[in-house]
């Protein structure tokens, strides 16, 4: 083991002290001179024609600076499939459709102005069930496509299909086959900081957008495309992150409210802030994509999977954001979680008049893994094999290439499964069964070395040192609370030879940073870490080049001084060859020294001495230290067949739970939850645990309590009181297990870890519930009502 000073250590988050003193400035706290407050009027119908909008009263209200409707701004389409406009002019297709917007000098006045806008609707037939919406004759959510051509169906032109092997033959070979219908619902990301932005134009119409987005450069791309259609082509756009109050996928797309803020700012020539309240957060923010799956798997007599066949239908809602692309991530667990040679997966996204969906921690992986792992349990039972053993038989292994062409390098899945078994005392407890108690497990695969979903999956970083030895790092990623300021400072400190407290990092400013594909897909530590290593190596070389010149000068100057003080001082005979070549020098803990003699009494010099003496020299000789790197790993984008090694490495993990189910009330109590994760290398164990606990908890909520209830297109529970997020009183004993197979491509061996903890949690709970009471809940969340209903059906002799 190399002897690291900072990597692998639980360095505290001192760099983020502003967050514990109330100093950190979130979008909620940001105020610009002359700033106005924007508010949005939403539709009151799921599907209707707008017959009339009268905003005249609102416009006359004192303090109102602008009222915009779809008639007041250019009719430009935005979004992934360009299927909506910023303000809706003729037709609304969901309850959250933005119909008008106001900017006023206070939020209260803006709110009052909204209530003065009169909108008359003519209701249209609506469709809320994706299966119904697929049928011929269903009401059309969109009558034309983005180019105005008439469409005949609600099915999106996004045919997600993946097929490898010979399904027919595989079915014949399978000794055991099971089929499950599985479904997952909408859940809200529940960032504690609500969404918002401030849009501000300068005199020449260059835009600064303060936005908590985690894809700052993607934002620029989308906004500049919009600009080119509203007559602002070529204007400079700068996106700046405030401190971000949670992200979890919500900040991946450029949201409609951001375009509205931009329009209001343009119209009023003032900075405009739009800040969601909690109800808007529930009603008007795209949540996690719901899906229904029909999954079949077959295995041979030895329990080896021979095929997996799955069809999914996704309720797209009325418009298309990233939710419709979650199948691209679903393909990963569908094709590559466990070894399975023949795979078929098809996902159909269907327009309905429901709310539309976006990304959430894990993207489509939690949904798909719920399907795969439910099916794994069914099949293990059919084959008469212990579910843990069944997973071990089919586990992924280092060196595998999966049907999707993922190249598995490091893989700690076996260790994870075994750790879960051991910690839960799986075999012992399975033998000595206790009524109403049960064990279940589920595993995961996820990208952990970037994810090439755009042509470049790069990450740029700049490193510069001042004459005092402070290091400025200009990161092109964003900090959403994941701990990157600490982890990146550890990496930089280790690589440069300074201390973490010497490192100052600027995140999220497109004017300063190079470029980054986005702080998503659990990619930040891996990508920024690798970029930092390259940049630091360059900067270090510059420092050492200087040191070779400067150390002898410093030493000689010192001797001169000593002689002045003490004329009898005899200059020692030094071997200057020890420091003649930068290769012979190293830096550690702020000190530069010869490698051969690290404690040399004269050649061991503080880094700041070199930097200062290198700078304050004179014309033609002064030097500064700065380096940049753009790390873009040799990965592949998915091809037409949806194959490609899109990440440098993959994360694996297994969650096991023991539950107790109360058959009277239907309550599920988690007695123990073991989350074993292959993380490559734990860069900062304490921070790493925070990711596992946090994601695990959200996963438990996904499994047991959380659901946005949407009835006829309307969100029925838009508050924390009615949306059941877990609180501190919901004690879940999570026991993390860190598996470190050391990844050859990760910075210091690290892999990404942000999303994995969430992915296998819900299916592990579902499988444990089945083990406990013999009913399988295939529809998330696993509520007491569903359990009681299923128990009743079981008693009545129905097969569940």
């Amino acid at each position, binding site marked *: 083991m190399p002897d690291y000073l900072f990597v692998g250590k639980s360095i505290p988050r001192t760099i983020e002290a502003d967050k514990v003193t*109330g100093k950190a400035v979130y979008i909620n706290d940001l105020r610009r001179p002359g700033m106005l407050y924007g508010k949005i009027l939403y539709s009151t119908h799921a599907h209707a024609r707008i017959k009339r909008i009268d905003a005249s009263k609102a416009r006359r209200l004192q303090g109102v600076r602008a009222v915009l409707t779809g008639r007041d701004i250019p009719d430009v389409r935005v979004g992934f499939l360009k299927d909506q406009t910023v303000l809706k002019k003729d037709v609304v297709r969901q309850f959250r459709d933005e119909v008008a917007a106001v900017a006023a000098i206070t939020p209260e006045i803006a709110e009052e102005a909204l209530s003065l806008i009169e909108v008359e609707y003519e209701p249209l037939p609506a469709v809320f069930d994706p299966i119904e919406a697929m049928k011929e004759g269903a009401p059309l959510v969109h009558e034309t496509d983005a180019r105005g051509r008439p469409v005949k169906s609600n099915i999106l032109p996004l045919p997600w299909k993946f097929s490898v092997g010979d399904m027919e033959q595989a079915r014949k070979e399978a000794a055991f086959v099971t089929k499950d219908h599985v479904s997952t619902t909408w859940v809200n990301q529940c960032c504690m900081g609500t969404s918002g932005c401030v849009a501000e134009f300068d005199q020449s119409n260059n835009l600064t957008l303060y936005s908590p987005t985690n894809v700052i450069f993607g934002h620029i791309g989308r906004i500049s495309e919009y600009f080119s259609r509203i007559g602002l082509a070529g204007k400079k756009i700068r996106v700046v992150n405030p401190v971000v109050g949670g992200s979890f996928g919500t900040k991946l797309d450029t949201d409609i409210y951001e375009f509205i803020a931009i329009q209001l700012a343009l119209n009023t020539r003032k900075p405009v802030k739009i800040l969601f309240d909690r109800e808007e957060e529930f009603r008007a923010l795209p949540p996690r994509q719901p899906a229904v799956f029909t999954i079949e798997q077959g295995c041979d007599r030895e329990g080896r999977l021979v095929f997996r066949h799955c069809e999914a239908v996704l309720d797209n809602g009325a418009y298309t954001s990233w939710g419709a692309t979650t199948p691209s991530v679903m393909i990963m667990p569908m094709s590559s979680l466990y070894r399975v040679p023949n795979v078929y997966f098809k996902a159909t996204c269907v327009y309905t008049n429901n709310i539309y969906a976006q990304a959430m921690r894990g993207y489509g992986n939690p949904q798909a893994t719920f399907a795969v792992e439910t099916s794994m349990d069914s099949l293990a039972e059919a084959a008469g094999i212990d579910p843990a053993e069944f997973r071990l038989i089919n586990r992924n292994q280092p060196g595998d290439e999966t049907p999707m062409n993922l190249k598995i390098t490091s893989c700690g899945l076996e260790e994870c499964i075994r750790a879960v078994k051991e910690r839960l005392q799986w075999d012992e407890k399975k033998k000595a069964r206790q009524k109403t108690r049960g064990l279940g497990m589920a595993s995961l695969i996820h990208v952990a070395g970037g994810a090439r979903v755009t042509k470049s999956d790069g990450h740029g970083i700049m490193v510069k040192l001042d004459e005092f030895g402070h290091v400025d790092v200009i990161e092109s990623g964003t900090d959403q*609370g994941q701990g990157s300021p600490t982890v990146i400072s550890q990496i930089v400190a280790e690589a440069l030879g300074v201390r973490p407290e010497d490192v100052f990092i600027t995140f999220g400013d497109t004017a300063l940073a190079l470029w980054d594909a986005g702080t998503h897909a659990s990619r930040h530590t891996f990508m920024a870490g690798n970029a930092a290593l390259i940049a630091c190596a360059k900067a270090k070389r510059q420092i050492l080049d200087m040191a070779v010149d400067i150390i002898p000068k410093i030493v000689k100057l010192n001797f001169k001084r000593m002689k002045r003080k003490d004329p009898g001082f005899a200059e020692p005979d030094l071997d200057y060859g020890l420091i003649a070549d930068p290769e012979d020098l190293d830096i550690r803990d702020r000190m530069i020294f010869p490698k051969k003699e690290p404690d040399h009494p004269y050649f061991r010099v503080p880094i700041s001495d070199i930097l200062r003496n290198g700078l304050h020299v004179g014309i033609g000789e002064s030097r500064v230290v700065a380096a940049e790197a753009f790390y873009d790993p040799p990965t592949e984008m998915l091809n037409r067949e949806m194959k490609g090694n899109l990440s440098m490495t993959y994360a694996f993990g297994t969650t096991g739970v023991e539950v107790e189910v109360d058959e009277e009330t239907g309550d599920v109590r988690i007695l123990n939850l073991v989350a074993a994760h292959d993380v490559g290398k734990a860069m900062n164990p304490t921070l790493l*645990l925070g990711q596992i*606990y946090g994601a695990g*908890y959200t996963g438990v909520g996904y499994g047991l309590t959380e659901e946005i209830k949407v009835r006829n297109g309307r969100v029925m529970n838009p*508050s924390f009181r009615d949306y059941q997020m877990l609180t501190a009183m919901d004690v879940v004993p*999570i026991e993390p297990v860190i598996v470190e197979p050391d990844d050859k491509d990760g910075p210091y061996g690290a892999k990404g870890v942000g999303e994995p903890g969430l992915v296998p949690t819900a299916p592990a709970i579902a499988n444990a519930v089945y083990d406990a009471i013999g009913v399988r809940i295939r529809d998330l969340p696993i509520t007491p009502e569903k359990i009681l209903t299923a128990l009743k059906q079981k008693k009545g002799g129905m097969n569940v």
Partner: protein
Amino acid sequence: MKKVSVSFTLNGDPVTADVPVTWTLLKTLREYFELTGAKEGCGVGECGACTVLVDGKAVNSCLYPIPEVEGRSVTTIEGIAEKDGTLHPIQKAFLENNGVQCGFCTSGMIMSAKALLDQNPDPSEEDIRKSIAGNFCRCTGYVQIVESIQMAAKLKE
């Protein structure tokens, strides 16, 4: 709009606020005093992000009518570190033990924890969990928050 003049002690200093009578303590802190540490996570008393201390008790300042603050003593997250910047043990513990991630819930969490530890210097895990039952956090799963408060109790000893 009708205004009120409310005098109270804010982080140790005597202050007077002249604000609309309908304002809450949270709005007054954030808008009038520009103390933005207390956050609005819901505005309706359901999330605890706005927690401050009034006469030593943790309250949801988003529900607290400003006229009722008259004569009382209010402490916010900005008022618990030493004047020289030395952090309060709870603040230290949250940094030390990863009790903070995005930080949006943190001000409220720390204030709830302070109300608890001021009353009960040696709380059980159950006491701690109860004291933050009304403080929601999406990032941490509460585990390291509970541990941070336990650590703070030790640091305070």
